[in-house]
């Protein structure tokens, strides 16, 4: 492969990234398994199954998704690449900050033959949308990792009670499918919680199973478990993985025929939370999660609202209230690393000697260290 032509003026920061002291707010919601399977078939299970050699399916044991709101006070880049004109390397420029809202849905991947069934098995997460309020982050995520990052307005605040939380997300969108509709900044979703448990001014009298964990002992036990899980990956040399592994379809359009793809690949990334602290729970019955489903947002809402028909093209605002099954918040450090191409799909009938150049990328995480022990690390572009 050729060298990427670096430029200071392309507003893109290549990895690796380190995000210290993030504050995360997580909301567990139900997802429609049929919609998840449809998503997998549309974006991951491309082409002929036999040639592909793997399949993505919904995780039957976890029919839920995590809506995450993450505050990044500091995004540090440690890429020391010297740019083309001899400009200051990325790592010496400074840091950035952002807020991010995304939905994460777990899926299972496995091989299709008896031999590959377990060696290619993995639990991964896909993000059907990611909203950030930092354009540099949006460009980098989209163009390097293929993430469906959107730029929007994210307003964080406190709800009506002490220690509560609220977020409002606005996105550029079209209020209707009228041909002349003009793009506007429209409300997309909003979340409001009650206070952290044990809460002052609790709004709901309904007991939550999560309140079982509100005692000091229970929270301490959960924090200990979190710390243990943090270290599990290291102590087991990666054989027992704990981080969240993301998968996404990275694809780009042809300039003259924008419906034709010039590149399609599955890309994997590891996001690892560690040094988890200040874990606290919200009563899920106090959480209000509203989603705007009108106009151009109808499609994006499909995974949110299990079984609720989307009002595609409705000119009037359509709002759905999404039930929340659990809600919690914590502080942690977050690293984004191990970006790799998992599988390269042939484009336009290329015979594509290198359609799977990084075979190790599709290996199960438990097998990866052993593969590395007995094989030279493959590189994208190496001849098979």
């Amino acid at each position, binding site marked *: 492969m050729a060298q990427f032509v670096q430029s200071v003026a392309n507003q893109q920061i290549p990895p690796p990234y380190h995000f210290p002291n993030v504050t995360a707010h997580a909301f567990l919601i139900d997802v429609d398994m049929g919609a998840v399977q449809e998503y997998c078939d549309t974006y991951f299970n491309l082409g002929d199954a036999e040639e592909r050699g793997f399949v993505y399916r919904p995780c039957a044991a976890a029919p839920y998704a995590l809506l995450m709101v993450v505050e990044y006070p500091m995004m540090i880049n440690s890429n020391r690449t010297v740019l083309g004109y001899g400009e200051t390397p990325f790592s010496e420029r400074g840091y950035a*900050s952002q807020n991010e809202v995304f939905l994460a849905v777990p899926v299972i991947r496995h091989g299709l033959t008896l031999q590959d069934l377990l060696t290619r098995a993995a639990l991964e997460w896909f993000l059907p949308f990611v909203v950030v309020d930092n354009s540099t982050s949006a460009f980098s995520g989209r163009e390097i990792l293929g993430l469906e990052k959107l730029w929007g307005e994210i307003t964080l605040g406190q709800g009506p009670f002490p220690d509560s939380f609220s977020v409002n997300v606005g996105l550029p969108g079209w209020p209707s499918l009228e041909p002349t509709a003009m793009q506007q900044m429209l409300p997309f979703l909003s979340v409001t919680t009650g206070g952290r448990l044990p809460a002052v001014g609790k709004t709901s009298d309904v007991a939550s199973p999560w309140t079982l964990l509100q005692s000091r002992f229970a929270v301490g036990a959960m924090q200990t478990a979190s710390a243990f899980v943090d270290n599990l990956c290291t102590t087991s040399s990666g054989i027992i993985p704990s981080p969240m592994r993301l998968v996404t379809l990275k694809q780009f359009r042809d300039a003259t025929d924008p419906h*034709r793809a010039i590149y399609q690949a599955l890309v994997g990334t590891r996001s690892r939370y560690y040094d988890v602290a200040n874990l606290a729970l919200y009563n899920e019955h106090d959480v209000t999660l509203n989603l705007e489903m009108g106009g151009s947002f109808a499609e994006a809402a499909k995974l949110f609202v299990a079984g609720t028909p989307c009002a595609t093209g409705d000119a009037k605002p359509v709002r759905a209230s999404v039930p929340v099954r659990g809600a919690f918040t914590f502080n942690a450090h977050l690293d984004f690393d191990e970006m790799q191409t998992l599988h390269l799909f042939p484009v336009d009938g290329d015979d594509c000697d290198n359609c799977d150049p990084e075979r190790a990328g599709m290996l199960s995480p438990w097998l990866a260290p052993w593969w590395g022990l007995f094989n030279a690390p493959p590189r994208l572009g190496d001849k098979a």
Partner: protein
Amino acid sequence: MTRFIESLSTHQLLPPYRCDAASVHCFLFDIGPQAIQTYCDTFLNIGDPLQRPYEWRAIPQAPFGMLCVTHYPAIYSLDPETPRALGVQAQAWDHLKQTEMFVAAPVTRYRRTNDNLLVDPVIEWVQPILIVDNATSAFSGREILGLDWLYGHVDFMRPAKPGGFQVNVTLPSWKVFGPNSPEEMLPFASLTRGQPLPLEAGETPGAAADRLGLSAFIAQLEAAIPDLAGIAEGKFPETLELVGLKQFRAAGDPNLAIYQAVIALSCCYSNVNDMQFFDAAEAVVTFQGSSMVNEILGTFLNVPPKWRPGPVMVGSDGKMVPSQLPRVRALEPRMVFSFTAQMDLTAAGTLYTFRDLPPAAPRKPRASR
């Protein structure tokens, strides 16, 4: 054909694009052939020169840049497939509003023969700096057309004098490079100009240009770039051919490219109206002093050092000391004009991809300035 898999999360406006009444404000300034040639060699003349089918060169007789602010009150896609897929009958789709600022410079593309001769010169334009205030446009320009569109704010301000013009441009950037320096939305450029030169009854815009002493300069422009002939009569070239490097990083090694291609774009102007000339002496283009702005200016515009913004200083305690020259006059426009037009932008074609060419040798960075 391998189809791109659509998703509303892609948030792209599909070409071709049209805007019925774009207002275009241009500032022509000297940029120097060396800076333009360096840009060509860095972004277009890459790979093995003997196998590359084209060569781009600066035009010695036209060593200028055109800084343009263009406001699109409604730009839309003419791609028929998107509305059809949604069951909507429409010719125009996905209307949005945007304002952009860019710098364009003319270059000549030559075809290289098997005998290593450079023939068939074609004038094209490169755009080293593009800033747009609409994220959907930025995603589309970057990911489909391969233009390095930056996302920023381009705001029309209330001018100091009636009939004047002021635009402020801000970008996410760093005041000063350093591990503890935060990225902020910072001023990048400010453009002002006075009132248009009034025309007597029956006068053409050329008369105003004459009164401004621009006739010789316009003649020089027309000699170097025939497409610009007629600008004094209130015309603008019907078509400007743009060219850019479309490239994407590999996920596993972001210093490598998974795709590199040179894309030609066609920007067509029609129904050109209200051509107006302005006194260049009243026009001021200033740039904010910050590490990143200095770097962009030094890299792409070759602004002479005497005109650069003063450096931002860091005190002994690590805190920033406000510069004595936070904003200086950085560019001296040679010609300032504006007009309105219908604009059509589309990809004319992929000139070639680097897939089958041997990889370029890693470029050595210049010695630090």
